[in-house]
């Protein structure tokens, strides 16, 4: 019960982490090495499948066709416009690499490009982190930072082979943009700034997180102004960056006119105006006497304030622009928890516990404040930037687990600064230190050297612990929970559970090409990608009511569900059932979220309380609520399970995941029939009997009339 409500489920829009603790059973979600990835070529898991499908579409049909792509295989019967609703950076990058390689007559499949894209980009991330840290501190810190980011768990989750994900390339773009920005502030040259804009453009095309850049850079400029560190270099860098970056970012179809409309981008515009005004005043100051300048200054300031005030009032009044600052300051999960169950249901939209911080960053989380301390103590223009970066990123990471990703690079950089400034003095400084304190006896010198040695050894040991931790985390938690599960016996030998691929292969071979498969949204991309069948809902959760309809079908009784499924033209229903092997990520454990989401849209038909016992427990055994014991999901999960005795110590129909004997063993279907159950019962597929003679759906008929 605890795990059920806490861990939430699923994979919302972008990526996943699998941090469920598997209680009591020895099944661990785990992938294999890169070699295995090659063999299986599982572009690990759910939504990555979608990215792969889009990339495939792009390479086989060309760029313009991709922009206009309408995917009728997903969200049946609605379909989905893909071209205008995705960030195309990832697909275009993979497509471009594929194109270039083929041009050089190196024939590789697009799939191989996709599998290895993330590792390549993580290498680039390490390089750009090195460059950025070198600009901020020195070369040694840069090298350490590159080492850290190469192995830190917080980032490695996106950079394992087979993780074909927006974030993987976006972090590179982020770091590289920041490097170029720091460089352009330092030099004040338009060359670096244009480079920064291009990198920013790439970031915009790749990930929605570009908003972080377009707010952090203006913040940096603003703080520089406040600190009276205004210089011509800052003026050139920011003015160029803002204008060119704005124009470039608007070229992405999904972004469109947002940069001049939404409040996320207003800070950048405001700082731009401020910077111009400041520069103008500086100019006037040189030309006018002090008295004149003061009068002019006050006049100008009051006029500007008035104009800004009136504009904001006018815009707010006409509703073109909402002052939604509070939305950003108030933690989103709290907002969403009340309003949108589908967001609350996703484990990535939760605030972060200290355990997550420690798990993802280990020693770096304790040492990076020291790096921040050194940076602020020896402040200069670019260190202001990294301090702001750290403070804002740590705030966002605290609010949402998912944003740990943006915190990781800055933590690596600052920790590297901390470690390198310690090592600088304790590692191999004998020659330098020898000359000034000549009065020290050689005896004391020896002592100090041995002291230095101990400090160095201990520090290196801590870093070694970090490396070991990273290896462990990577192999246990972050090697993508792909479609292949592995289980460990007591003697340590490994079984591979290949049920998912078995089931998807079955679907592909044995069902009609246009068959429509209903499943919970987590598996939408997988079914579309691996089984090549039409799905009703998928991991792109753009249409809540459609998802709620599927949830309603799953949580209604059979006859009510049948009506819904008829109206949606469903041919097959696919569910995940872990009761046989004790796999805790199955549909029964996610079931309450289906109920909640369904209740959100259909409060009259579905009530969450009906699925609990009067004591408020969620039980699948005899004491469970009758509504639960007769709903479609329960019946499909436990159909014929009552006859099955897994173990001599347990009664027949004993569910290993929930450690309970099921309450309804006599399950019969009227409108469905079992079509396929995989080896370990992990995937079960049911066929919806087609009773009515007319195959055209009511849905389509409605749409036509």
């Amino acid at each position: 019960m605890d795990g059920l409500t806490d861990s939430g489920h699923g994979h919302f829009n972008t990526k996943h982490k699998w941090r469920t603790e598997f209680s009591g059973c020895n099944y661990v979600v785990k992938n294999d090495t890169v070699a295995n990835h090659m063999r299986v070529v599982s572009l690990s898991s759910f939504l990555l499948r979608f990215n792969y499908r889009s990339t495939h579409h792009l390479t086989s049909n060309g760029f313009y066709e991709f922009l206009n792509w309408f995917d009728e295989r997903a969200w049946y019967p609605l379909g989905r416009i893909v071209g205008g609703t995705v960030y195309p950076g990832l697909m275009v990058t993979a497509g471009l690499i594929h194109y270039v390689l083929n041009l050089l007559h190196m024939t590789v499949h697009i799939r191989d490009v996709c599998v290895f894209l993330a590792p390549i980009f993580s290498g680039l991330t390490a390089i750009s982190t090195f460059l950025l840290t070198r600009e901020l501190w020195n070369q040694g810190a840069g090298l350490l930072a590159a080492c850290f980011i190469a192995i830190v768990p917080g980032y490695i989750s996106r950079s394992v082979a087979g993780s074909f994900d927006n974030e993987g390339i976006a972090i590179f773009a982020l770091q590289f943009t920041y490097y170029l920005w720091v460089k352009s502030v330092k030099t004040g040259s338009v060359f670096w700034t244009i480079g920064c804009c291009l990198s920013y453009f790439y970031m915009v095309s790749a990930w929605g997180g570009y908003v972080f850049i377009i707010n952090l850079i203006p913040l940096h400029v603003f703080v520089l102004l406040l600190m009276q560190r205004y210089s011509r270099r800052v003026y050139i860098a920011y003015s160029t960056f803002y204008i060119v970056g704005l124009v470039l970012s608007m070229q992405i179809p999904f972004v469109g006119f947002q940069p001049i409309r939404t409040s996320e981008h207003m800070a950048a515009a405001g700082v731009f105006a401020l910077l111009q005004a400041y520069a103008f005043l500086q100019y006037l100051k040189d030309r006018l006497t002090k008295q004149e300048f003061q009068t002019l200054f006050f006049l100008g300031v009051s006029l500007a304030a008035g104009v800004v005030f009136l504009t904001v009032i006018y815009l707010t009044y006409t509703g073109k622009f909402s002052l939604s600052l509070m939305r950003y300051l108030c933690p989103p999960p709290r907002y969403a928890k009340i309003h949108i169950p589908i967001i609350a249901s996703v484990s990535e939209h939760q605030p972060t516990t200290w355990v997550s911080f420690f798990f993802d960053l280990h020693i770096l989380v304790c040492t990076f404040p020291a790096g921040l301390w050194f940076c602020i103590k020896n402040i200069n223009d670019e260190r202001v930037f990294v301090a702001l970066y750290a403070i804002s990123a740590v705030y966002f990471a605290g609010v949402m687990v998912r944003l740990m990703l943006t915190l990781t690079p800055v933590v690596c950089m600052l920790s590297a600064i901390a470690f390198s400034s310690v090592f600088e003095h304790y590692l191999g400084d004998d020659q330098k230190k020898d000359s000034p304190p000549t009065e020290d006896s050689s005896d004391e010198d020896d002592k100090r050297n041995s002291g230095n040695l101990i400090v160095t050894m201990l520090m290196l040991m801590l870093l070694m612990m970090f490396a070991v931790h990273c290896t462990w985390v990577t192999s246990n938690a972050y090697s993508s929970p792909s479609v292949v599960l592995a289980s460990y016996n007591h003697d340590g030998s490994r079984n591979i559970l290949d049920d998912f691929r078995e089931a998807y292969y079955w679907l592909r071979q044995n069902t009609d090409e246009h068959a429509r498969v209903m499943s919970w949204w987590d598996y939408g991309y997988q079914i579309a990608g691996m089984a090549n069948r039409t799905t009703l809902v998928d991991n792109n959760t753009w249409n809540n009511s459609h998802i709620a309809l599927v949830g309603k079908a799953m949580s209604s009784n059979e006859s009510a569900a049948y009506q819904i499924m008829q109206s949606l033209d469903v041919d097959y229903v696919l569910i995940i059932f872990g009761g046989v092997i004790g796999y805790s990520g199955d549909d029964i454990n996610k079931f309450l979220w289906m109920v909640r989401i369904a209740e959100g849209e259909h409060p009259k038909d579905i009530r969450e309380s009906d699925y609990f016992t009067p004591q408020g427990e969620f039980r699948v055994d005899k004491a469970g609520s009758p509504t639960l014991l007769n709903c479609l999901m329960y019946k499909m999960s436990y159909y014929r399970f009552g006859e099955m005795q897994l173990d001599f110590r347990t009664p027949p129909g004993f569910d290993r995941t929930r450690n309970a004997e099921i309450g309804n063993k006599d399950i019969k279907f009227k409108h469905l029939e079992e079509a396929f159950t995989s080896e370990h019962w992990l995937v079960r597929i049911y066929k919806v009997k087609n009773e009515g003679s007319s195959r055209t759906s009511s849905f389509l008929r409605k749409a036509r009339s």
Partner: protein
Amino acid sequence: ARRLMRKCSDRGAKMNDASVQTLLDILSGVGEKNVTNSLLCTKTLLMEKVGQMMDWASKRSVIRMNGEKFRRFVKAPPRNYSVVVMFTALQPQRQCGVCKQADEEYQILANSWRYSSAFTNKIFFASVDFDEGSDIFHMLNMNSAPTFMHFPSKGKPKRADTYELQVRGFAAEQISRWIADRTDINVRVIRPPNYAGPLMLGFLLAVVGSLVYLRRNNLEFLYNKNAWAFAALCFVLIMTSGQMWNHIRGPPYAHKNPNTGQVSYIHGSSQAQFVAETHIVLLFNSAVTFGMVLLHEAATSDMDIGKRKIMCIAGIGLVVLFFSWLLSIFRAKYHGYPYSFLMN
């Protein structure tokens, strides 16, 4: 007719003399048939009650009731209106924090209804405080507050007429949805814009501004790097120790086992944490940070060699000790984690 009248007035004890007089006139005027009389009596009583409720509702959007009022206007027939009642305990000595929050939401809901254009006398919002009507709590067998109940215009309240606070929370939107479900009346929740945030911000700015103004001759403190660095470090440490999680989830400070009386400060699962635990982590993190800074200072400062040596030893001691301690706490929480350093 006289007996009937007494019955009537018994039911409607709140009626004043004038209304009794009118009623008497009407009754004596109309005639003998008991049925008609009782019907009429009911009707009049109903009108009286509705009028009274409307009167109260126009004064306050949530009608406060004591035991007597509750029995007459909510419990007793005749009624043609639904009443949503919040049972609560708002007195400060009851120390019910949830009640206060629930009350705020309820007020928002009731006000949205009161000032909406769809306002009718079909539904009223009322509240009963435990200290004013504890007998009602006993009568309804209620032992927790706040509780929301709906009393339909006809018949007794069913199971679904008690709002599931635990499950649905007390957001006004949720309550309104529940009301729509029970009565088919849609209350559109309109939240008054929240001025508290901007006001606080303005206040803070004013305080800071006046401080700066007062010390305008001595603005050195603004250039104090130590202060700024310290503030930044505080913020970072607060965030990395999971205080935001505490803020959103509101966990208990520590857990006391009722059987053994043992207090545990560390939550056993990696998915959750206690407040005490985050404070410990905050402390450990800052100790490690401080150790690192000490190590750096030991190597760079120009103090005499003895002091520097002590600093160096203290620094490395802090780093190693507190880090391994932190690691052992992590290990206790994250089951199956194999590594430890110096201590288990």
